[in-house]
């Protein structure tokens, strides 16, 4: 959570202030989309007109595949649930999965990466081989395998979220591991680490006081980029039927799967809205990640031209 806090305190807001031009546009668009997504997720219980698994109200059943109307603003699904409510509740599921998946992979990846990079030796070699093996798997296949192992395929809201998050974690740990290990290898040879060694500091202290603090600068970037991939993996799992039980939680991927048959029948509202939700959230988070990436690199960051008029005045003053 500290990394998250750091991201929001210094990373994004600092970057937004320092950005300009197209880069600023990208970042601000991304921030608006992501912010809208987070607010939607938090307020879902209040703004959703119905529950995510609600099939009827006091007037009776909603009815399946009803077109958008004043009662159901975005229509109803083939299962007879309100599309708008499903989309809103789905954002909550998505946010929880992202947070769990990212936090878990950061913890595991950072610790493994630090230990592996700092100590090296046989442990490092084994961990690198495992990480490379995981890279070689198609990520969705790995997530499916993990989800079957963890929950036997499908389950309730909380266990479902956890197992989906864990499956995504297994896919993304190697990325954090690789990045932190590379940074640890770089920092290990820096003079300030040698200075700490000469002082007599313990390995533990060197790892966390000196290397960890200097190894995490790229984390916010991978985090945002991975968050968008996590949503895609979640949607993919749901689409393939390995996600969360529809009666336990709303999930965009599952809704898309159920609406496949509707598309050819001219029923557009059941697929467009969950699909759009996925696209916009992924776009938003990716924009934030990409523009943070550019802004963090001084060579990619755009600046205004230097002001020579100011300079002229300065030199005139000095001559006088």
């Amino acid at each position, binding site marked *: 959570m500290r990394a998250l806090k750091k991201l929001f305190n210094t990373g994004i807001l600092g970057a937004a202030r320092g950005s300009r031009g197209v880069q600023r546009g990208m970042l601000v668009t991304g921030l608006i989309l992501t912010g809208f997504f987070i607010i939607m997720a938090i307020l879902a219980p209040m703004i959703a007109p119905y529950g995510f698994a609600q099939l009827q109200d006091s007037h009776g059943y909603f009815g399946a595949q009803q077109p958008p109307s004043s009662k159901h603003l975005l229509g109803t699904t083939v299962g007879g649930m309100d599309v708008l409510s499903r989309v809103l509740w789905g954002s909550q599921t998505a946010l929880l999965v992202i947070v769990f998946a990212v936090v878990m992979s950061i913890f595991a990846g950072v610790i493994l990466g630090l230990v592996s990079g700092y100590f090296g030796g046989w442990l490092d070699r084994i961990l690198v081989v495992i990480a490379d093996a995981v890279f070689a798997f198609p990520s969705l296949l790995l997530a499916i395998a993990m989800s079957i192992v963890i929950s036997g395929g499908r389950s309730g809201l909380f266990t479902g979220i956890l197992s989906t998050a864990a499956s995504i974690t297994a896919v993304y740990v190697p990325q954090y591991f690789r990045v932190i290990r590379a940074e640890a290898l770089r920092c290990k040879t*820096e*003079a300030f680490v*040698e200075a700490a060694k*000469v*002082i*007599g500091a313990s390995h533990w202290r060197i790892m966390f*006081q000196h290397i960890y603090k200097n190894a995490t600068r790229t984390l916010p970037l991978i985090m945002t980029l991975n968050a968008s991939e996590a949503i895609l993996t979640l949607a993919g799992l749901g689409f393939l039927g390995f996600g969360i039980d529809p009666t336990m939680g709303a999930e965009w991927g599952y809704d898309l799967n159920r609406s496949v048959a509707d598309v050819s029948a001219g029923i557009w509202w059941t697929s467009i809205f969950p699909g759009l939700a996925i696209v916009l959230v992924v776009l938003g988070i990716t924009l934030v990640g990409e523009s943070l990436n550019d802004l963090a690199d001084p060579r990619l960051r755009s600046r205004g031209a*230097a002001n*020579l008029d100011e300079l002229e005045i300065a030199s005139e003053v000095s001559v006088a």
Partner: protein
Amino acid sequence: MPNPVLDIQNLQVAFATDHGSVNAVQGVSLGVAPGEILAVVGESGSGKSVTARAVLQLLPSTAVLKGAIYLNGKDVLNLGADALRAARGHDAAMVFQEPSTALNPVYTVGWQIIEGLRAHTPKGEKFDKKAARIRAIEILRKVGIPNPEERVDYYPHQFSGGQKQRVVIACALVLEPKLILADEPTTALDVTVQAEILDLLRACRDDLGASVLIITHNMGVVADMADRVAVMYQGKLIEQAPVEQLFAHPQQDYTKRLLAAVPKIGLRAPAVPIATDAPSAVSAVGLEVTYPGKFGRPGHLAVAGVDFEIKAGEVLGLVGESGSGKTTIGRAMVGLAKATGGSLNVLGTSVIRAKTKAFRAIAPEVGFVFQDPASSFNPQLSIGAAIAEPMLVHGKAANLAEARPAVEALLAAVQLPTEFFARFPHELSGGQRQRASLARALALRPKLVIADEPTSALDVSVQARVLELFAKLQREFGFACLFITHDLAVVDQVANRVLVMHQGKIVEEGTTREVLTNPKHEYTQRLVASSPIADPVEQRKRRTLGR
């Protein structure tokens, strides 16, 4: 001046940065006459490199230029891309500071020399490969590469640092430029190699008639090379004079300070030798350090059987060129390099093949000052936290707040304001950081301090102040010290005794004054003779004697 080769008029350069515009050069006007060597001197950040790079338009895209630069009568700032490309290399060529990065490692040096010729073949004319190769061999011979017919096909890594710089100069010379811009051409080189490169640059002028604009911060190099000197300070040209006049009668206060700060051998009263019966802090007999070789290759013997002793309270200077093994000895004493043979006794503990635990036990007694203060501080820790670290690690203070009074006392001892406690390393200048580094080394009042080239990353005037402080602290704290440096004049200011190292062995040992004024070993003599003296008249005399 008869038609100057280079004429810079009121040049102004500003850079766009995250913190607004920075005016790197503010109204500099200077000229270089044909066949003249002009030295531009100044501290880092004074705008001297930016001025030279502006001549060939080698500045990053964030730079804005104003004023006028005439190179052989061409208005460089208003040249089109093609005309500029034609001027580069032909009218003026650049020699960079670091020869190992200025050469492309995947091409032979011959290819890189020919590259210039190919780039300047007029359009429509056929490029003659054979003739170009002959030219390349010829120019390599001219810059003193032995056996050029064969070595023209060598890759950069097969040359030594000095030879690489010769190749870079050959690349510049092959197009017979009217002007050579040399940006700190010898800073990355050892002093004996520096003397050779300076000779070569002088030959470029004497034999080939090229003008040279040499940028340097080393007043010895200025005295050795220049006809005229331009002094830059904070982006402005503050003084310009013929070399003898500048050294004899500097006009500006800054120039006077700069000249006064230059370390000179024999300036300080000879240090009192330490009594021979004093207890020894470090003793080494037949010390060997071998770096493991790559797979299937024998290791590299960096230190080959060295005997020495440091008495308690004594400053021992260790002098040598890069690769001589001097830094390795210092690192072996604290466990950063593994001593592999002989015996090495640090403060009563034998550290041959010792475990990390043994080094941790003597750590509170030993301080280490690193060469580059910019990288030896954790950028994420405040200066106060960094200085307090030894106290926290060794349980002298439970937390940072408790260590604060002691840290503030240390800051005062190294003449830094106590507000620096909360500052971060990047907010300090190089000299301030190196003082903080001293404070950290002295935090636990160690009996032994190892200083590894502590001033070589600093400007001359800053170096003088840090050395003064170091000598004062040594008197106050009375620690024994191994002072590693490549600069003979620096060692003269601090050390009681000197060891001279060459290729892993100690070739000479004696009191500082003895070794520096009356060197016995042939290598030490060469070392003393190669370091240029910051006095043009004296240096000229020495040079003609040396021939």
